């Protein structure tokens, strides 16, 4: 290859390299947007720091007026089988979206412990009367401290604990039927 041809080639490469880079960047951005739309990519999805660790112990009061029992630290330390811990509130709209999934899980025999986050007991009771009760037991996290113990950053948020009280999975935001069938069912079977 002659000198002149080589320099012409590298000059052409100089023109195309930025264009190629921009094209690759655009493609990546497009893939990201597509993933965000169909839910396979969540830029805010931060993995929980608790995965693989013992669930934080909580001693919280039951929610008055719901007629549901509360639960103590033992229920989280050694549940004896897989158990879901669900943070929710009556003021939280996505919780309404998620609720049918919780009710369906409870009907299938999944044990769900509820933590009523920064809510009024009367509102919580009204919510459960209206949408049905999926919880085996329910406690009130009136000031949000239990939420902080779990690294919560919004409601609803759901944690799966195995029989030994180890956190195996966390879902931030409302669980959809897809979430249940694609992720939770597999884990429930594995930790049964």
């Amino acid at each position: 290859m002659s000198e002149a041809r080589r320099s012409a080639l590298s000059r052409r490469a100089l023109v195309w390299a930025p264009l190629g880079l921009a094209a690759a960047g655009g493609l990546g951005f497009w893939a990201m947007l597509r993933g965000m739309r169909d839910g396979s990519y969540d830029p805010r999805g931060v993995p929980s720091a608790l995965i693989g660790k013992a669930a934080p112990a909580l001693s919280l009061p039951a929610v008055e007026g719901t007629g549901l029992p509360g639960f103590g630290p033992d229920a989280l330390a050694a549940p004896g089988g897989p158990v879901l811990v669900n943070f929710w509130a009556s003021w939280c709209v996505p919780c309404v979206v998620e609720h049918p999934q919780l009710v369906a899980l409870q009907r299938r025999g999944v044990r769900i412990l509820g933590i009523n986050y920064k809510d009024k007991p009367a509102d919580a009771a009204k919510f459960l009367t209206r949408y049905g009760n999926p919880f085996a037991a329910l406690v009130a996290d009136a000031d949000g401290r239990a939420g902080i113990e779990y690294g919560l950053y919004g409601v609803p948020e759901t944690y799966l604990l195995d029989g030994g009280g180890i956190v195996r999975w966390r879902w931030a935001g409302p669980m959809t039927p897809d979430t249940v069938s694609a992720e939770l069912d597999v884990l429930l079977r594995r930790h049964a």
Partner: protein
Amino acid sequence: MRALLFAMVVVPSLALAVGRPSEMLPDPAQEARAQEIGRELRCMVCQNQSIEDSEADLARDLRRLVRERVASGESSDAVREYVHARYGDFVLLRPPFNWVTAPLWALPVIVLAGGALALVVMRRRSAGRVVPAPLSEAERAWLARLEEEP
């Protein structure tokens, strides 16, 4: 235009100042320490603000928690570690160095080294190109003829 700017700049900063004094610790040294800790903790709801700058509920709860722990005499590292253990690396605005964050920290070094390498290679190539080949017999004769011409 000026009114709009005023609304955009001054009003939010006023809103930010509301509700602060009631949260502050009475001891200025402790309050300063709490603020220093809080400025390095990310608000998980807004994600690009520290808990000191954010008005999200969760940020307020964390501010309160930091202040309680500072007031009880806990060291700054212990308070940071308490939040870090629950929210993971992401909560620290200055990420720690570990295997997961190593690529993040190494990236500037890698980019610099790559640039330096590219520079060296380009230098070497162009240096090789400017060394002229010695003149051939015919060229020398032709030059001599040009010089002889009037």
